[in-house]
């Protein structure tokens, strides 16, 4: 068996692949956080819980209604996004005039409620989600075994991320969005319905989290806790990348996933903490984040 730096290449590439998978979720989630923060100025603490809801709704669609993965991929983001719209209309919209920290506190409370409710209903143990027929199996590449589903996750999330970047940076709708981020009052004066745009943006960000949840369901166990710890890592990712740039979130997400994977190979004890250590270093060298601008 071939070795690289004394590590079997099979293990090395295997961990790198897992790193890329984790990176896909970091990218999708931090992208959603960045989009929401851009317009609402709120850090959505509920993001992890909404990711978990995505996985659970997919699980319920499969096991209660018999609707498979592909349907879930289309339906779940809409359903969970709709709950996001309700949350924004009923609660978040009352907080825009207050200090931003209240938004954080409110969404933290919502996350507790959602996670508690799901834990009451489904317990703490993980539930399995069957992988779609089409994506089972994998390719033998000689140096490693490449499961089809993992390739699909990476490609799909990269596509979604790039599409989001394209919409925000290159289309007319995106230009409204960016303008409203800069100066909502002026954009409203031009006759654009900014409050509705804010609502839909929150729904969209939540939908992204739910989509990530659906994609995660076949890989990880579907459990009420799946979003709780993840969201803290994603916060660190956001601090490292800075929330100023969409592309920045995507690159940082995938990059940190890879670094985490490499750490698992070379120094497994630090694999849980490496992202936080990188965050500390970035704060020392470039407090505004790699792609951010200090405001």
């Amino acid at each position, binding site marked *: 068996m071939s070795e690289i730096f004394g590590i079997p290449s099979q293990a090395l590439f295997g961990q790198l692949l897992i790193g890329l998978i984790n990176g896909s979720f970091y990218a999708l989630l931090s992208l959603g956080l960045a989009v929401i923060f851009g317009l609402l100025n709120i850090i959505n603490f509920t993001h992890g819980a909404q990711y978990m809801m995505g996985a659970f709704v997919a699980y319920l669609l499969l096991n209660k209604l018999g609707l498979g993965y592909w349907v879930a991929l289309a339906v779940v983001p809409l359903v969970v996004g709709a709950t996001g719209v309700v949350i924004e209309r009923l609660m978040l919209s009352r907080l825009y005039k207050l*200090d931003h920290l209240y938004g954080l506190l*409110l969404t933290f*409370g919502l996350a507790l409620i959602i996670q*508690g409710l799901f834990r009451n209903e489904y317990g703490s143990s993980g539930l399995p989600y069957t992988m779609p027929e089409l994506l089972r199996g994998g390719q033998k590449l000689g140096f490693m075994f490449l499961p089809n589903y993992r390739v699909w996750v990476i490609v799909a999330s990269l596509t979604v991320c790039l599409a989001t970047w394209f919409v925000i940076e290159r289309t007319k709708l995106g230009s409204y969005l960016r303008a409203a981020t800069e100066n909502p009052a002026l954009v409203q004066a031009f006759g654009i319905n900014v409050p509705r745009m804010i609502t839909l943006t929150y729904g969209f960000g939540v939908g992204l989290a739910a989509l990530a949840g659906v994609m995660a369901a076949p890989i990880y166990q579907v459990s009420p806790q799946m979003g709780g710890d993840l969201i803290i890592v994603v916060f660190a990712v956001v601090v490292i990348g800075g929330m100023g740039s969409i592309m920045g979130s995507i690159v940082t997400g995938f990059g940190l996933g890879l670094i985490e994977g490499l750490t698992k190979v070379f120094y497994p004890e630090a694999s*849980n903490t490496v992202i936080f250590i990188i965050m500390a270093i970035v704060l020392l060298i470039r407090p505004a984040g790699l792609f951010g601008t200090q405001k």
Partner: protein
Amino acid sequence: MAAIRTPVPGIRNELRHQRVAFVLMAVILAGAPLVVYPLFMMKVMCFALFACAFNLLIGYVGLLSFGHAMFFGMASYVAAHAAKVWGLTPELAILCGTACSALLGFVAGSLAIRRQGIYFAMITLALAQMVFFFCLQVPFTGGEDGIQAVPRGRLFGLIDLTQVGAMYALVLAIFLGGFLLIYRIVHSPFGQILKAIRENESRAISLGYDVDRYKLLAFVLSAALAGLAGATKALVFQLASLTDVHWSMSGEVVLMTLLGGLGTVFGPVVGAAIIISMENYLAQLGAWVTVVQGTIFVICVLAFRRGVIGEVAQWLKKPL
């Protein structure tokens, strides 16, 4: 935080009723063990001190730390280790825990104050998560088991703390001491500068104050006092566990302070008492406790931002 204000403490006369309230609180706490379980009251006092320490940052400097469990939990581990393995007397064990939290506060604070507002909250949360994984992996914390059967020992080598009365008196003294220290800090010239930073940071900078140094000092003080609370709790319950460093503990202290009243002197104490009682009486409901806590968060943010003591102070038209 523009939305969180405490009335300017002006002439000494205006503070007289706070003194009355303080004496009232001390009397209630001293007499409480006649009515309720002493262990329960000691828990309330530990968490009340923890919440007061947290309030020093959010209420008077406007910094929301979402990682205060790292100071609380780390100090409780160090104190438990010092008392059990090194065999130190309780006062030295508590001192070790507090010093360790102050040091950790210096490191975490130096990093976190480099960003403001929402980023500050996320950074402290992430650093606390790092400390959590550290505590999970290093051998001295005992991993999932924690450090159990911590000896309470003899205070100054003389007073036997296994007696409930002695332990209660010690916890009461620590709580009241910590509370008075925070009160003193808030009403000192240093405290006035902290409030100036909260109200208008750029103005404070232009007046020539080295804002970062003030923020860092406030952060270290808050961390040390949170550590004092954690170390005391380790001796009271003779246990240090992962629960104390977990992010849900950070969330809990935010909730206590929010419910009692951000930036009020007595709010965190009342908030801690309410939340701890609630957890005690709702313990059999299991995961519903989380749901109830979340609901209180939502209600407080949407409709009850002044908190219990804030509302009372508004009604009395006097700062509490």
